[in-house]
């Protein structure tokens, strides 16, 4: 049960997008639709899970001063693996996400979890943490993507429910900032209400 807590923490209490405000670039750039957001979230989750596990294994043998470069190499290797696998099996998504797949390397969430969690916890705990944070990130991205898609394109998960044009601005760059901003307000409000109750 206590181990299970790490998983839940990543989704709600340490939600990478709404609470920690980390990894903003992919959050804003790839959420033009729910499917794209989810794809990015899952790709990041795969990297996070693998890198957390490997880093928690390697941490005891890595000298302190070179730990960051070592983590970066491990993360970059997994990112490349994810990149190649996506290119082979989901070429459509690979093309849409484009440059943001290699940029998972510099996503602060991944390096942040390696430094703050994985190097002082066991493999199992690190895996659960990676999974939890990954799910939290995926949920947040899907949610933002869904809102932007519904408002901007009048469709949900690529099913168009109206033939007219949506409010285009939500699919374009400014909409990303606005939707994330207002979703955060909503998240804060809900958290506040829970605290009071």
């Amino acid at each position, binding site marked *: 049960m206590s181990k299970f807590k790490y998983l839940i923490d990543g989704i709600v209490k340490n939600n990478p997008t709404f609470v920690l405000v980390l990894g903003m670039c992919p959050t804003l750039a790839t959420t033009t639709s729910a499917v794209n957001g989810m794809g990015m979230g899952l790709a990041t989750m795969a990297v996070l899970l693998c890198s957390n596990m490997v880093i928690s294994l390697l941490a005891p*043998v890595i000298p302190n001063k070179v730990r960051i470069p070592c983590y970066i190499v491990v993360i970059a*290797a997994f990112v490349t693996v994810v990149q190649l696998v996506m290119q082979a099996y989901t*070429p459509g998504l690979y093309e849409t996400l484009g440059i943001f797949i290699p940029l998972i390397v510099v996503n602060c969430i991944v390096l942040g979890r390696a430094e703050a969690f994985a190097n002082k916890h066991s493999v199992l705990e690190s895996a659960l943490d990676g999974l939890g944070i990954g799910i939290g990130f995926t949920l947040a991205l899907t949610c933002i993507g869904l809102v932007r898609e519904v408002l901007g394109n009048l469709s949900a998960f690529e099913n168009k429910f109206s033939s007219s044009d949506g409010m*285009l601005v939500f699919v374009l760059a400014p909409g990303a900032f606005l939707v994330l901003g207002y979703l955060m307000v909503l998240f804060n409000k809900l958290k506040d209400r829970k605290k009071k109750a």
Partner: protein
Amino acid sequence: MAIKSSLRNMVLVLTLVCLGASAAVAVIYSVTKDPIAAAATAKTNKAIEEVVPAFDNNPSEEVLNIAADLQKPDETNKVYVAKKGGEVVGYAVESTTKKGFGGPFTIMVGFTPDGTVYNTSVLSHSETPGLGAKITDKSSHFITQWNGKNLTDGSVNLSVKKDGGDIDAITASTISSRAFCDAMEIAANVFSNITSENK
């Protein structure tokens, strides 16, 4: 927790980690190399199926390399020949325009042997989502208006109405629409060059 750093163990560990990482990536690369190539071929084949009438040969094996501009014979476009029962039923011409809004984009244009457009399909693009990216919407008027038009007998003026042509542009995406017309024109030129050379 972590061991004490000395020059020797730092160099050693960093080297080992790098070696391990590169080896792992190299293995995955060799494993995914064929599926990646297969995915690319599958995409081309799907686009060919969409743009020409039903065929029974393998057009990916019958590729002609034809120049759009006979003055520049080095810049060739790929032309996939679709045949049914040995008879040519259509040509799928790959055409890239450099005039797109977000960069170059590539389309596949299917012609029946008399030069009429059968269908078109976008292979890759980087146009703005919601605006220029509408070129990928297969049921939109902008895409369907091409079908059935003969581009080789001079009956169609290949530019948007704003520029005095016959093509309805996508609303608020004139640049993408112009680029699409440019790609169609390249494809039409390639098509006329096949008929004079290889028919």
